[in-house]
C-alpha cells in the first residue's frame, strides 16, 4: 500500500500527539481531526485520548459554553492544539489578522480567535498549514496575533513544538530560538523547501524523509478513522475515498 500525501500528514500529526490525554481541534480542520482520531484509535487499549472539535456538536463534550476550552487550557487540562496562520515567521510568530499595516490592512483575515491565549497555555501547539510558500512562511509577520516566544517574566507553560506543511515537518526550539527541519515529505527536496520558506531554519545536509505509515496504521486510518471523520467532515472524507479508489489498483486489498 502506498500512502496518499494527506495520509502521511495525518500519520505525522498522530505521531506528534504521542502521549496526549486531551487534544482540541479548531473548526474546519479535517486533517488535524483525523490525526487526533488516529491517535485515539492507536492508543485505545492503553489510555483514553479525549478529542474536542470546536463548533462540533458531536465531538464536543464541553457543557460550560465556549469559554470552557480556554478554561481547561488555563487549568492545564489541554495537552495539544493546532494553529494555522495566514503568516508564520521564523520566530514562530503567527498572524491571523491580515497583510499590510494595521488597522486598514490590504488583506483582512477573520482574526486571531483564541490564539493569543492558547499559544501561551497549551504545552504542545502544532502549527499546521498545508500551503508552504514564501507568502505564508515569512521572515517577519505583519501582525503578531500570538508570539512564538516570550520574555522570562511572562507566564508561558505552552507554545509551539512543530510546524507541519505539505512539504515538510519542522520542530521549534524556543531556547535558540528557531525552527529546525526534521524531515522532508516524499516527493519534496531540501532545495525546494529552502526556496519555499521565507525564513532561515536549521537543517541537516541530508534531512531524513518523513516516514510513511505501516500497513496496520494505514488500514486503521482508511477504516475506522475515515468512518469517524465522515460524520464531521463528510465532504473531505468523500474526496479522500474517491482518491483512494483511483489510486489503489483494482483488486488490491485496502
Amino acid at each position: 500500500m502506498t500512502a496518499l500525501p494527506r495520509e502521511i500528514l495525518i500519520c505525522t500529526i498522530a505521531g506528534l500527539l504521542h502521549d496526549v490525554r486531551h487534544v482540541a481541534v479548531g473548526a474546519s480542520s479535517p486533517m488535524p481531526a483525523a490525526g487526533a482520531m488516529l491517535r485515539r484509535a492507536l492508543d485505545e487499549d492503553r489510555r483514553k485520548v479525549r478529542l474536542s472539535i470546536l463548533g462540533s456538536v458531536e465531538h464536543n463534550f464541553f457543557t460550560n459554553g465556549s469559554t470552557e476550552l480556554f478554561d481547561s487550557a488555563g487549568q492545564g487540562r489541554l495537552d495539544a492544539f493546532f494553529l494555522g496562520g495566514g503568516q508564520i515567521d521564523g520566530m514562530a510568530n503567527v498572524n491571523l489578522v491580515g497583510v499590510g499595516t494595521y488597522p486598514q490592512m490590504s488583506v483582512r483575515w477573520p482574526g486571531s480567535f483564541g490564539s493569543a491565549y492558547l499559544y501561551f497555555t497549551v504545552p504542545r501547539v502544532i502549527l499546521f498549514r498545508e500551503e508552504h510558500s514564501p507568502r505564508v512562511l515569512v521572515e517577519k509577520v505583519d501582525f503578531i496575533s500570538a508570539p512564538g516566544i516570550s520574555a522570562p517574566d511572562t507566564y508561558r507553560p505552552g507554545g509551539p513544538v512543530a510546524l507541519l506543511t505539505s512539504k515538510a515537518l519542522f520542530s521549534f526550539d524556543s531556547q535558540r530560538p528557531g525552527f529546525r527541519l526534521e524531515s522532508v515529505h516524499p516527493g519534496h527536496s531540501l532545495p525546494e523547501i529552502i526556496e519555499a520558506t521565507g525564513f532561515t531554519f536549521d537543517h541537516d545536509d541530508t534531512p531524513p524523509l518523513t516516514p510513511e505509515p505501516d500497513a496496520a496504521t494505514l488500514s486503521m486510518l482508511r477504516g475506522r478513522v475515515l468512518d469517524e471523520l465522515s460524520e464531521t467532515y463528510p465532504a473531505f472524507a468523500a474526496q479522500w475515498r474517491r482518491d483512494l479508489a483511483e489510486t489503489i489498483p483494482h483488486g488490491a486489498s485496502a
Partner: protein
Amino acid sequence: MAEHLRALASLVRPGMSLALPVDYAGVSMAMTRPLIRHGAGDLHLVCVPTGGLQVDQLIGAGLVRSVETSAVSLGEAGGAPRFNDAVKKGGIRVMDATCPAIHAGLMAAQKGVPFMPMRGLIGSDILAQRADWQVIDNPLETGDSIAIIPAIHPDIAIFHVPMADRDGNVWIGRRRELAAMAYAATQTLVTVERIVDRSLLADETTAAGTLPALYVDAVAEAPRGAWPYGLWGEYATDTDEMVRYATAARTPEGFADYMAQEVCA
C-alpha cells in the same frame, strides 16, 4: 410575529453596544432585518467571541461604528465580505481581541468588578493595539506580568434559543456564554423557536439549562430564527444559503439585492 420582532428591535437606540453570540451558539438571525429596518445606527458590536453573518449584514447596512471581536468570518463559506470591505476602507473601527479576553470582559461585568486578569496576550499586537487593556505586575508574585481586561457592559444582548416559557425564562442548554452575555448586559432580547406552557424552572432537569427571567427583558417567537445558521439540537446550518450570501455580498450592490429579497427559511 414580525410585529413582535419589530418591537424588540425598537429597543435598540443609536450608539448602543450590542452583544451577539458566536455562529453555533444561537444567533438571532430573525432579528437582523428588523434591526436594519428599525435603522438605529452608530452601533458598537461585541462578538461573543466571534462574529459571522449577522455582524456582516449589520455592517453592510451601515449601522455599525465599531466591532470588538476575536474574528469575523462566514466559516465554511469563507471571509465576511462586508466586514472585510469596511476594514479595508476604514469604515469601521475593529477592536481586535482573542476569544478568552472577550469572555473575561463579560465575566468582569458578571462579577461586578472593573477588570479580570488574563494569561497570554503579552507580546502580541492584539495587546499592543488595545489602549484599553493594561499589563500590571502580579501583586502576589514578583517578576510576573499579567494582562488585565476591563469589564464589558453591553447595552443589549440578542440571541436565539429553542424555547422560553410564559414567565420569560429561556432555555440555553449548555450554551452558557448566552447566560454570560445576559448577566453582563443591561437588557437582553431573546427570540425562540417556540414558547412552552410548562415552567422551565419547575423541574431540575430543564432548570439546569435555563436562564431565569430576571435577566430577560423581551422574548419573541421566531421559528427557524437562526436560519441560515443552525441551532443546536434543532436544525443544521444551511450551507448553500451561506454560500449564496457570501457570493452576493462581494459587492455593495449584490449585498443590497440580497437583503432586499424576502426571506424564507
